């Protein structure tokens, strides 16, 4: 009886299927079908992984040295996601690693077709072309990268520098007429190999050099004791009066019209002094709009040599002239201008003290052989009991001109 009751209470198998279990089984089946359709739509055929994960696996193969396995995986991923340029680029890299350069090139070019404006894809392709010695194409791609993403400048410059070949070719094919980029590249190269002069020569020949690069070049030439070349670069790119400098006047920025730029070159060098204050002023001047003012504080018997300019002098006779103004400048030793030229040539103007309005001071000298020199604003130490200068000096319109 009990058994019959149990048997009566248990459903048979057909009633399970046809009864309450049927909807559950149908739901599971439906879910599986849905998942399969999603799988077919969105994931890679290789291992059933999404393309990105499959690509990562391919990279792992590549990094393990399994180049062929990586290629197979990348091929599969690219086939599943053919519109995504990175997949083709990845494939190109793997093929290049295997030395299958023709196929690699097809893959990279396809990636570029898919996204012509992507700097990353262009850079990857450029790396491939550098790698296979197809430098013109690599430079062309890098040029596009530089135009689109200046952030990559140093990376691209590194490729140029290491693989681009001659500076002329890099400038022509990798940079073009963009003067700012060209000058940035010059400084990149100069910082690594200052003896590589071809980059400057190319920049100069193409009229792309700017004043910043020219200053770098001048400073380097001066450190190499190549003063004449430095002077010529200065004249072409940096002199305030390019036509007159080294012709009518061998002093640049003669009236202190622009603030001197610190660093080596042919501009004024002003060294700070604890007992003087040296300033470029616009309220007092004899010509132009500015002059140089020096205030002595009377605390020391100073040997003042703190304002100078390097010179390049050709053979000939010269006259040194300057406009000077003084106000209550004490002691017997006043302010002078002194030139030290090549071959012991030299000149010094008379001392100016006390109070005087603008007036000209002058001296003459002769240079026998071309060479570097220097003009200095000086105040010699006094031998008197009252020897600590106090007062002010203004200086303007300094000139070293050839005597015809």
């Amino acid at each position, binding site marked *: 009886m009990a058994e019959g009751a149990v048997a009566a209470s248990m459903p048979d198998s057909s009633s399970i299927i046809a009864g309450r279990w049927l909807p559950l089984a149908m739901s599971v089946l439906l879910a599986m079908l849905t998942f399969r359709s999603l799988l077919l739509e969105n994931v890679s055929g290789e291992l059933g992984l999404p393309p990105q994960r499959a690509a990562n696996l391919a990279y792992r193969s590549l990094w393990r040295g399994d180049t062929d396995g990586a290629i197979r995986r990348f*091929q599969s991923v690219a086939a599943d996601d053919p519109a995504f340029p990175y997949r083709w680029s990845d494939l190109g890299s793997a093929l290049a690693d*295997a*030395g299958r350069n023709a196929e690699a090139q*097809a*893959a990279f070019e396809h990636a570029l077709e898919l996204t012509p404006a992507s700097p*990353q894809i262009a850079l990857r392709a450029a790396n491939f072309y550098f790698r296979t*010695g197809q430098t013109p194409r690599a430079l062309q791609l890098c040029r596009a990268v530089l135009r689109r993403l200046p952030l990559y400048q140093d*990376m691209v410059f590194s490729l140029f520098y*290491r*693989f681009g070949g001659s500076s002329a070719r890099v400038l022509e094919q990798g940079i073009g007429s963009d003067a700012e980029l060209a000058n940035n590249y010059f400084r990149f190269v100069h910082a690594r190999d200052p003896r590589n002069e071809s980059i400057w020569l190319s920049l100069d020949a193409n009229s792309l050099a700017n004043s910043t690069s020219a200053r770098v070049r001048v400073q380097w030439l001066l450190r190499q004791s190549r003063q004449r070349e430095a002077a010529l670069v200065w004249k072409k790119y940096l002199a305030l009066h390019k036509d007159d400098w080294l012709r009518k006047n061998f002093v640049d920025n003669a009236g202190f019209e622009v603030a001197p730029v610190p660093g080596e070159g042919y501009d004024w060098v002003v060294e700070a002094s604890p007992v003087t204050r040296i300033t470029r002023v616009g309220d007092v001047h004899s010509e132009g709009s500015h002059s140089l003012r020096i205030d002595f504080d009377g605390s020391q018997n100073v040997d003042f040599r703190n304002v100078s300019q390097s010179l390049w002098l050709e053979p000939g006779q010269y006259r040194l002239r300057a406009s000077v103004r003084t106000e209550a400048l004490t002691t017997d030793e006043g302010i002078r201008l002194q030139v030290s030229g090549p071959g012991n040539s030299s000149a010094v103007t008379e001392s100016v003290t006390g109070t005087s309005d603008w007036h000209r001071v002058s001296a003459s000298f002769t240079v026998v052989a071309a060479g570097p020199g220097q003009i200095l604003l000086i105040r010699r130490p006094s031998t008197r009991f009252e020897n600590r200068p106090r007062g002010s000096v203004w200086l303007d319109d300094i000139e070293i001109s050839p005597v015809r």
Partner: protein
Amino acid sequence: MRRLAKLPLFATALAALVLNGAPQQRPGSRPGGNDPADATPAAAAEAAVAAAGEVLVVGTISSTAPLLIDGVSMDGRAASSWPLAGQDQVASTTDAALLVTHDQNLVILDPFTEVRVSAAGRETYLYLRKGGLNFETRQTRLFICAAGYLFVPEPLSTGYVRMAKSQAADATFLVDHQVTAGAFIEVGDRGCDEQGLAWLLSSAGPGVAGAVGGAAGAVGAAAGSAAAGAGAAAGAGAAAAGAGATAAGAAAAAGTAVAGTAAGAAAAAGTAVAAAGAGIGTAAVTAGAVAAAAGSAVAVSAAGSGNNTCTSPDGCNGNPGPLSPANPPLL
């Protein structure tokens, strides 16, 4: 349908990929041989590059972290790998970096490792400035210069070479090295430098190197003596170096087939044996050792699985054989 917009080009590219099979290896070619006919596709590409007068690429490097190539930070997000030119100095940063050499050897640089990469003919010369690396050589040897000493794993080897400063006040560099497959052809048997020229030009043959245990630079410089520093060269199979050397045990642990023979032969010949065994060991390279290496002392490394005893011009066991004037590294 969007994805099919570029179908013709895609199909062309895909067809090209499918139709071109894997590169075929010339039947009968042997790994590591110097036969020009062994040229790999990469070598053929190199030849084409050289013929075009372009800069030869000596390898590529990849990392998930920024890399420094000649001091310029190269962002892994910008490109998956970067080509390397000869004499490039590469520094990994926070992550390891994979260097694939032009002769298809794999080198994984530890984080914060610096190497200078050069082509040595068809092979590659790595000057390890700092840090360490794992290698997996394929068809060619790999020349690794660490702390002034040359380590040369043979083809089909895996292992590592790492540099670290010792705790000693003399700033001794320790070179930790091991092979897990294959063997070292040389383990610090010769001096080397950044340019890779010193050991090429040294016609006097190998100097003293190997595991020179102990900060005292315990190199058994005296020819004809098996003594090496505080330790004495042991009998067959064990090469004892100074107090710090792990040589003897290492030789036993990882010794390859002929390591013992090499040591024994060296000892029998009255040559100072100063080396780690078969790839495992710690070479303490000191200024003293460097000086000794430059001298005329002859020491034979017991490491490198006995390949140092190979004198056949054809090489031994398919290997190119020891470096010698007759078999120079191809710089």
